[in-house]
């Protein structure tokens, strides 16, 4: 089950869905995609509903937002494994060959193997590496990339993690890995290619950095 929270992804969403559907059917994996839209004003919902018609509602499910997107989507997920990713074509979905090694969680990393980025200037790379270094020193998470935002979880593992703690936004993703390590779950890594947003803008301003630091320090003090 792929959980796709979206906001203003009218252009990216059909492409992501198409890529996912093709990747899964090429690998012979049974799948479903759960799209949870946060009230986008740009028509994302109509696109999602069209996709549901095209692929069938056993493959695509569109949900209106209700509380936290992940928790809401989890209730409808029927898969044994849950993938959480961004719908903005950032991850270039071509790595569904996780689960070898029988990990509880598989996390995408931009920093190892042939993982990487495209379209990033030096400043953005520096901030990314710097922030990650700080994270490694403070949290010692045992995973090389906490904010790559491409994850696969065993369903029971995700449920257990989600009931433990609630941060918001991407800090939530970081917290999940840290807690997972503490609880003894196995975390494997898979290189991902983070291609800069094809459509839409990517946000990395001063505000983002400040809120990242706040989140990091909060995790440092509470986990």
């Amino acid at each position, binding site marked *: 089950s792929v959980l796709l929270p979206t906001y203003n992804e009218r252009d990216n969403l*059909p492409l992501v869905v198409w*890529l996912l559907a093709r990747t899964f059917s090429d690998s012979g994996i049974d799948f479903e995609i759960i799209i949870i839209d946060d009230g986008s004003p740009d028509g994302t919902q109509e696109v999602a509903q*069209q996709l549901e018609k*095209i692929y069938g509602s056993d493959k695509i499910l569109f949900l209106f937002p209700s509380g936290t997107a992940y928790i809401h989507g989890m209730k409808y997920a029927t898969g044994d494994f849950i993938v959480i990713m961004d719908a903005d074509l950032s991850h*270039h979905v071509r790595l569904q060959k996780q689960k070898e090694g029988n990990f509880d969680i598989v996390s995408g990393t931009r920093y190892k193997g042939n993982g990487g980025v495209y379209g990033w200037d030096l400043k953005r790379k520096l901030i990314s*590496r*710097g922030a990650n270094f700080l994270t490694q020193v403070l949290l010692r998470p045992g995973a090389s990339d906490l904010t790559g935002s491409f994850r696969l979880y065993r369903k029971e593992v995700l449920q257990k993690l989600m009931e433990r703690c609630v941060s918001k936004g991407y800090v939530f993703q970081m*917290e999940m890995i840290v807690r997972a390590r*503490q*609880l003894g779950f196995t975390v494997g890594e898979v290189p991902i290619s983070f291609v800069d947003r094809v459509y839409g803008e990517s946000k990395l301003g001063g505000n983002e950095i400040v809120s990242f630091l706040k989140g990091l320090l909060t995790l440092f003090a509470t986990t």
Partner: protein
Amino acid sequence: SVSPGSPLPSLPLSRFLPCSSHGSPTLLSPQAAMTKLAQWLCGLALLGSAWAALALAPPGLQPPGPLRQALLPLPVYLLVAFGCYSLATVGYRLATFNDCEEAAAELQEHIRAARADLRRRGLRL
């Protein structure tokens, strides 16, 4: 202002709620019991007191001369060393940050194929 006896105003931490554990969490490692902050404070307290005991001891209990000379500025040395290590590490990682040229190209191809296919299947963009 807070008058004695009144409840403290709530802090604006609404984005980050502290973790609650239901019942007793399964602790599979002793480190899980302490937060990272607590671990750091413990470690620093340990090292700090050891250093203070040795470096700032009264004349009768001081370690021999050269050792003491090295010991005194040790915290600063370690800080500087860590600073250098950080810069070197981040610099190295920055330099070796992969640029996924072919992934980007592949993606563009996929996008073309996707749009054609979806249009064929009835998607109105």
